């Protein structure tokens, strides 16, 4: 099984993740909930629509979703899945990965500011703040894994993950797992950082940035968001699952199952927790950074 299977799975299965989360939340709320494939239907519907642009906007507003999606596709070519190397695996690729996340963020924020709306400006401002704090947690967490496993590429770090790796370094790996989970929640704008369901523009940060996008542009944004959730989630799952101890086919299946379980966990978290007060979010992200650092210190000893 080559690395392209993982990329293919990411491109095809990514929109399933929000569907699973929504189903979990409906289950907890005692509702039947939308079909699992609802995100696909939404994408199809949006792609068939026309578009309305604000008179304030320029070419940047139209370029934002395009560049954002392209960067996320390249990022998914970097993330290994199911214990096989990614199509684009090289030493130091996690830095490139972080850079691509940065590109998506950069263009999304610019597109938001291009509308001249105070709401979208607010969203961009919060995104900038949280991203600046999440980035160290992310990079340091992956560095801790690199030091523990001796691999300098994502594929080298996660592809060699076996029971032996875990029993040799339970504490640091678990710490990085938690830290990356927090980054995962923050970057994908989930509870406890952001509530994707609220319709109060003042309380959101990711959804409010894309308020003015519609039609195919919104489809690109939603697909890119799903991809981002998939690739970041696959890193968390890759660290949590010692896939090396499994045969290839099984490793792949286990990883897909891991992704679904991760979504169920997110759904459970969203059903049980409230969104944090905005001023408390930095503390959460700082905490994630501290966990990564602690993992690194243990790695140093």
């Amino acid at each position, binding site marked *: 099984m080559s690395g392209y299977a993982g990329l293919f799975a990411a491109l095809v299965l990514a929109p399933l993740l929000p569907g699973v989360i929504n189903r979990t939340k409906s289950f907890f709320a005692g509702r039947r909930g939308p079909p699992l494939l609802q995100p696909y239907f939404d994408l199809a519907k949006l792609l068939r629509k026309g578009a309305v642009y604000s008179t304030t906007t320029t070419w940047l507003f139209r370029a934002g979703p395009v560049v954002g999606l392209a960067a996320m596709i390249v990022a998914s070519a970097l993330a290994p899945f199911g214990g096989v190397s990614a199509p684009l695996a090289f030493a130091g690729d996690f830095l*490139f990965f972080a850079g691509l996340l940065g590109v998506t963020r950069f263009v999304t924020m610019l597109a938001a500011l291009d509308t001249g709306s105070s709401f979208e400006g607010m969203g961009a401002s919060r995104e900038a703040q949280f*991203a600046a704090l999440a980035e160290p947690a992310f990079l340091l967490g992956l560095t801790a894994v690199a030091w523990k496993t001796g691999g300098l590429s994502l594929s080298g770090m996660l592809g060699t993950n076996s029971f032996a790796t875990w029993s040799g370094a339970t504490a640091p790996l678990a710490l990085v797992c938690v830290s990356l989970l927090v980054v995962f929640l923050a970057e994908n704008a989930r509870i406890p950082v952001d509530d994707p369901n609220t319709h109060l523009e003042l309380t959101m940060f990711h959804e409010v940035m894309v308020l003015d996008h519609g039609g195919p542009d919104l489809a690109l944004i939603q697909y890119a968001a799903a991809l981002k959730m998939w690739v970041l989630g696959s890193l968390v799952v890759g660290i949590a699952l010692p896939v090396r101890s499994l045969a290839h086919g099984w490793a792949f299946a286990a990883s897909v199952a891991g992704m679904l379980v991760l979504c169920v966990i997110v759904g459970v978290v969203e059903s049980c927790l409230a969104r944090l007060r905005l001023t408390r979010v930095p503390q959460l992200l700082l905490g994630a950074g501290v966990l990564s650092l602690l993992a690194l210190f243990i790695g140093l000893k």
Partner: protein
Amino acid sequence: MTLLLVALGLLVASGTAALLCRRSPRAANLIGAGGAAAACALGLIPAVVGLGGGEAKFDLAWPVPGGSLSLAIDPLTAFFLLPLFALCGLAAVYGAGYLGGRPGRRSPGAPWFFFNWLVAGMVVVVTARNAVLFLLAWEVMSLASYFLVTHEDERPEVREAGWTYLVATHFGNACLIALFALLGPRSLDFADFAPAAPAGLLFVLALIGFGTKAGFVPLHVWLPEAHPAAPSHVSAVMSGVMIKMGIYGLLRTLTWLGPPPLWWGGLLIGIGAASGLFAVLFALAQGDLKRLLAYSSVENTSIIALGLGVGLVGLHTGTPGVAILGFAGALLHVWTHALGKGLLFLGAGAVLHATGTREMDRLGGLSRSMPLTSATFLVGAAAVAGLPPLSGFFSEFLILYGAVQHAGLHSLAAMVALALMSGLAAAVFVRAFGSVFLGAARDGTVRGAHDPGAAMRAPLAILAPALLVLGLATPVLVPALAPVVEQLVSLPAQRDLDAASAPLAVVVLGSVVLMALVALIAGGRRLLLAGRTVGSAVTWDCGYAHPTARMQYTASSFAQPLTALFGPVLRTRETADAPRGLFPDAVSFATRTPDAVRERVWRPLFAHVSGALHAMHRLQHGRLHLYVISIALTLVVLLLWRLS
């Protein structure tokens, strides 16, 4: 070498000629700019040749004690000459439009005189091989830039900025004189240096002396004052290359000091981390576009310091791979920042030229009226923020890649600092670009702005693609840096650099795929929208019927969550005139973030010093006969002391 001497001569001659051309401002402008641009074009040739490893020398006796007119080009010199000539040449072209486009003002002769002398001074700084010559050129560079900073000296804040700059730069010079006196007690020629003091002391002296020029916190205070005060093409040169002279000096000194102990690298990493985080936070809090860029320059020299620190730590711990990556990343960042920040300052100059203000809270929506400036500024912003596929990403990649391979506390500190800085830098540049170029104009004065004339447009249009090319060429460029790196680490570097270029090549491949995908998706989107209704309306403002441009998120509001989070460091001052009563009058709200080091370290310190010196005022009583008596007394006492 001859070409370089011709270029130097041309610079000096054209600058002096421009000064003498008092009658015709047009001619002065043409001579000054033309001479500088031609000299820079000429100078590029020996620089490119020198980078390949060819050594060229020029020696002449000089009747100054300890001095000799010896110039040389080695790889390190050539490495710094390249961006110097490239950026100064473009800045000269830009300056021709900038200074020439303002009829009725004073003659542009004097600024061109100082500009050309500044360039000549920098050229001699990097080529000098004698301490006296070096210090002389250093002083020429400092003074010329001082006069350029105070070009618009009718404004009091410019005079204040010039004064700060003059004091700071001479404080640094004092350390440099001490440094060279200790380095060369026998001979002041670089080749015969024999350090007469512990290497640690020399390192600290160099760090203070050159660090003042490079702008390491807390010696950076002159930078955010001087850069906004100078004309924009001068700011570009000062920020792009002049502060790199500090880095050059530090690197050159390192080649004389022998193997580094661990604390040198640790100190550089500590300074880089502290000063980078400090500067990026202050950049975030600034309301003045050029001040923001100045703080960002401090942040970027700090990134260079981090790279050097990682390199030194790697050298000490015997991991040449790490050392070579650290040095290569730092060197590459010198180029990246020279081009990127040069571009940004030139773009900021175009904005200032078109709107007459640098206040970001008053600007907005310029991307429609100034398409070229906005597009190039965006490229510069993304490059300096370290986003792929532009060159800023590659230099930071090399430094981080080196640090990751060295499991230790030092590299860990460097990584933490770089990771935090890159996220904050992205916020800084989204904020700067977004509030100046996107949305709608917040102030009526901004309407009617337009892209500048051809002379000012051309440098922008050259620098922006150069940043992309520099990024995509790194896999080839990094192995070509081997002679420079070898000069610094005194180890064979070719193999390690070749190895480092392999991941870089994949990054470039990924970047190319990224650009192809962008084209593909954009094409697909266009196909989808073809034939469908594409309407336009006002921005959705959540039901509020009368949104105005004043209600947009401003640069200050964009930064507020982060400035509040880091409030204890920034100490932003808010002055609010809150609405009162049932029918409130005009209200106002303003924030100001003065430099914390300036306010809390230097100002009290200088106040104390001047207070202490006040006692000396009694000697300055104005009675001539007492002066004469005191001079005579001193002479007699001295004579008695010597003769006894």
